């Protein structure tokens, strides 16, 4: 009842639970009333034994059957056989009731057949329970039950069997029937003892069952003693028997009754509890005590019986000590294997190694010929009595299974250890994952750190370069202006000289202005304030205009600029100022890097709805391994060292192209030259389809 799907279902469960409890108490109440009635009817033997006794018994048997139908235990045979055993008694009692009514008490009678038949039926039921509860692992349960059986057999022999055999008034047949009863009790005692010692029976229903069986046994023995001694314990034995039957009945109707055939955990004291040791000590001393008591009473008990039982008990005790020693040794080995395993896990790394370690440790705990493996969890676990599978879970993820193939007995013995192995493997794997994550995090951090250092270095370089670049035009401006203003002692300047100087100052002002623009653009891009103002742009006239504006500087360097128009692109929507800035950057780069006497070629080509602008120089070229960093801010190619620059132009160019949804690329060959290609979509404007239509029409 782990998961309850809805509140109504939960109420249903509660109602059923309440119903179970009410029914149980009702039956308990009824049987208790019958029990009291039986006691009160003491003077009236007939009604008591003919009516109350069988009715109570029938009610108890029926309670067990109802319990089986109601709670559906996994193996109903156990409870049904126990109920059947008592039902057999009931038949015997009914036959006996007929004799009582007729005021006869024949012995042996057909009633004895049913009384005796009850024992093996109950024993069979209990045997099923013992088997199902599965605590057969521990030999001590059998050995201890055996010792108890020996003492019980001795008691039966001394106090029941021998007096019966010695009774001259009984025929041989009568003697056999009389002895059959204590033998049946003995059988029941051994199986019940085995049940109690081999499993954890501290469940309400099982406690009631054990109490019921104990009372039944006790009542039966008392009854037999009263018959044997012809003493007055007749009534007490009967009443005790009835009490036992009642307890068995309410045990079978209790809601915990399916536990009888469910697999149990280890016995509470694992065979070494103080109570059990005291009991076993009593068992060992019992034969001698009987000898003493009987001797003191002037009787001469069977020496053969006592000696034989002492010998058997001593033998069983020796075997038991050996079993305990072996078990302790095995436990110690297991503990040491497990702790060695825990240590090895800490020293190992990698899933494969950890899996191997777990499998190896598990195999060492199994018997020869058994196997244990750790395998990925993908495969469906095979369910068989010879296979034990423990899931290995790491952070809620089922990553693998520890699978052991061994006998069911071995599996029962080592399954707790296998679970430990699997859970320690889980922790080791988890630790692996954590370490791995930490390594990754630290790698990322150190990479980031490296990157930051690189950025810092580039920034320092940038500041140095920008300072230099700002000061260079300033130097010309300040220097020439000093001479122009007459503050200088340079003397008179001719009108021509003055005109020339003013042009120089003007040129340097523009250069400074461009530089400040670049720095500003970079700042805008950095702060995310870089946006386009699209208007209809005629790329051909824009390119011509930008080429003309740089031509003067190019001619000064004896560099020619040639514009080729492959196919004229239509006007399209773009930011004219930014595209102009892009062209300025590419053109001034090309001019800067082109040696005197060479040509910078600018090509405009339309391919489908894409326009390609190529700016090709015949300069020093750029090494292949630097091409992918070329558009990074502040990056300057190693071959650009001879030429001044901020390392900003191309990064700005890239930002401009990408803002237009286009692409920029570069091809270069050392010593031959460099070509930058810009691809722009001519219908890039999605802002104003109407205007685009006009542009299409114009084309």
């Amino acid at each position, binding site marked *: 009842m782990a998961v309850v799907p809805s509140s109504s279902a939960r109420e249903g469960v509660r109602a059923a639970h309440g119903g179970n409890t009410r029914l149980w108490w009702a039956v308990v109440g009824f049987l208790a009333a019958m029990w009291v009635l039986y006691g009160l009817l003491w003077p009236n033997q007939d009604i008591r034994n003919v009516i109350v006794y069988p009715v109570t018994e029938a009610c108890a048997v029926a309670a067990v059957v109802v319990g089986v139908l109601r709670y559906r235990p996994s193996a109903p045979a156990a409870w049904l056989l126990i109920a059947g055993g008592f039902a057999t008694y009931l038949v015997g009692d009914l036959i006996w009731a007929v004799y009582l009514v007729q005021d006869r008490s024949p012995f042996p009678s057909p009633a004895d057949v049913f009384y005796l038949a009850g024992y093996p039926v109950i024993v069979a039921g209990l045997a099923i329970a013992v088997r199902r509860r599965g605590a057969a692992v521990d030999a001590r349960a059998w050995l201890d039950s055996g010792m108890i059986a020996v003492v019980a057999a001795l008691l039966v022999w001394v106090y029941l069997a021998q007096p019966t055999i010695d009774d001259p008034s009984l025929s041989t047949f009568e003697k056999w029937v009389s002895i059959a009863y204590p033998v049946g009790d003995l059988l029941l005692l051994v199986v019940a003892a085995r049940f109690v010692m081999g499993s954890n029976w501290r469940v309400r229903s099982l406690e009631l069952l054990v109490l019921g069986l104990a009372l039944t046994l006790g009542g039966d023995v008392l009854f037999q003693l009263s018959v044997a001694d012809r003493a007055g314990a007749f009534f007490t034995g009967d009443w005790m028997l009835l009490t036992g039957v009642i307890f068995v009945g309410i045990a079978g109707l209790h809601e915990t009754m399916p536990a009888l055939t469910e697999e149990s955990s280890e016995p509470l004291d694992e065979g070494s509890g103080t109570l059990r040791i005291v009991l076993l000590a009593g068992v060992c001393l019992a034969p001698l005590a009987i000898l003493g008591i009987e001797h003191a009473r002037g009787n001469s008990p069977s020496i053969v019986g006592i000696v034989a039982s002492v010998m058997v008990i001593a033998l069983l005790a020796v075997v038991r000590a050996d079993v305990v020693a072996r078990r302790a040794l095995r436990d110690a080995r297991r503990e040491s294997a497990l702790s060695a395993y825990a240590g090895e896990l800490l020293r190992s790394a990698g899933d494969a190694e950890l899996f191997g370690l777990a499998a190896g440790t598990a195999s060492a705990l199994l018997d020869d010929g058994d196997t244990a493996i750790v395998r990925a969890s993908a495969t469906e676990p095979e369910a068989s009595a010879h296979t034990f599978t423990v899931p290995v879970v790491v952070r809620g993820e089922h990553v693998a299974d520890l699978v052991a193939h061994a006998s069911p007995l071995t599996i029962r013995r080592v399954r707790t250890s296998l679970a430990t192995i699997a859970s320690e493997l889980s922790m080791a794997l988890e630790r692996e994952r954590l370490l791995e994550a930490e390594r990754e995090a630290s790698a990322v951090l150190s990479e980031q750190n490296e990157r930051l250092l690189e950025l810092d270095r580039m920034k320092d370089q940038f500041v*140095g370069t920008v*300072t*230099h670049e700002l*000061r*260079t035009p*300033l*130097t*010309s*401006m*300040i*220097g*020439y202006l*000093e*001479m122009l203003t007459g503050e*200088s*002692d*340079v*003397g008179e300047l001719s009108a021509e000289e003055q005109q020339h100087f003013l042009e*120089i100052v003007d*040129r*340097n002002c523009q250069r400074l202005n461009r530089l400040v623009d670049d720095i500003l653009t970079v700042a805008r891009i950095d702060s995310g304030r870089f946006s386009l103002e699209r208007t209809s742009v005629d790329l051909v006239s824009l390119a011509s205009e930008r080429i003309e504006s740089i031509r003067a500087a190019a001619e*000064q360097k004896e560099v020619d600029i040639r514009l080729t128009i492959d196919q004229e692109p239509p006007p399209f929507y773009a930011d004219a100022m930014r595209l102009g800035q892009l062209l300025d950057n590419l053109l001034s780069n090309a001019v800067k890097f082109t040696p005197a006497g060479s040509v910078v070629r600018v090509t405009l080509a339309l391919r489908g709805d894409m326009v390609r602008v190529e700016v090709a120089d015949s300069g020093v070229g750029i090494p292949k391994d630097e091409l992918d960093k070329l558009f990074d801010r502040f990056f300057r190619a190693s071959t650009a*060292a*001879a*030429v*001044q620059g901020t390392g900003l132009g191309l990064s700005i160019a890239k930002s401009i192209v990408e803002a237009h949804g286009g692409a920029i690329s570069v091809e270069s060959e050392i010593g031959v030259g460099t070509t930058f290609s810009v691809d722009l979509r001519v219908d890039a404007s999605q802002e104003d389809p109407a205007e685009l239509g006009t542009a299409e029409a114009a084309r």
Partner: protein
Amino acid sequence: MSGAASAREQPLVLAADDDEDILDLVAFRLERSGYTVLVARDGEEALKLAAKELPDLAVLDVMMPKVDGFEVTRRLRADEATSRMPIILLTARSQDADVQQGFDAGADDYLRKPFSPDELRARVQAILGRR
């Protein structure tokens, strides 16, 4: 060197800078004060001219293509013929470490850009007048 220098009517100054306008500025200002000026646009050219013409003084920009001003200074000092030539460095780099590097390389004086043309003339005059 003294033979070549003393034989000239006007002191010969080597000016090197990669910026055309600044180079013109230096040349114009010094020529106005009666110096003959040789111009170089990069470090290599400056070294070539210095070895060939053995000028009385060199005004070198630090950040020049091919061979920078510090390196030109070191090479001039290393060469027997030019080891005693006075050198003034011009630079837009202004950190103290750069100034120190200039003097370590063997420069006699150091002028920060932007500079006053008159001041340059005065320093050149001061160094050459001492001789």
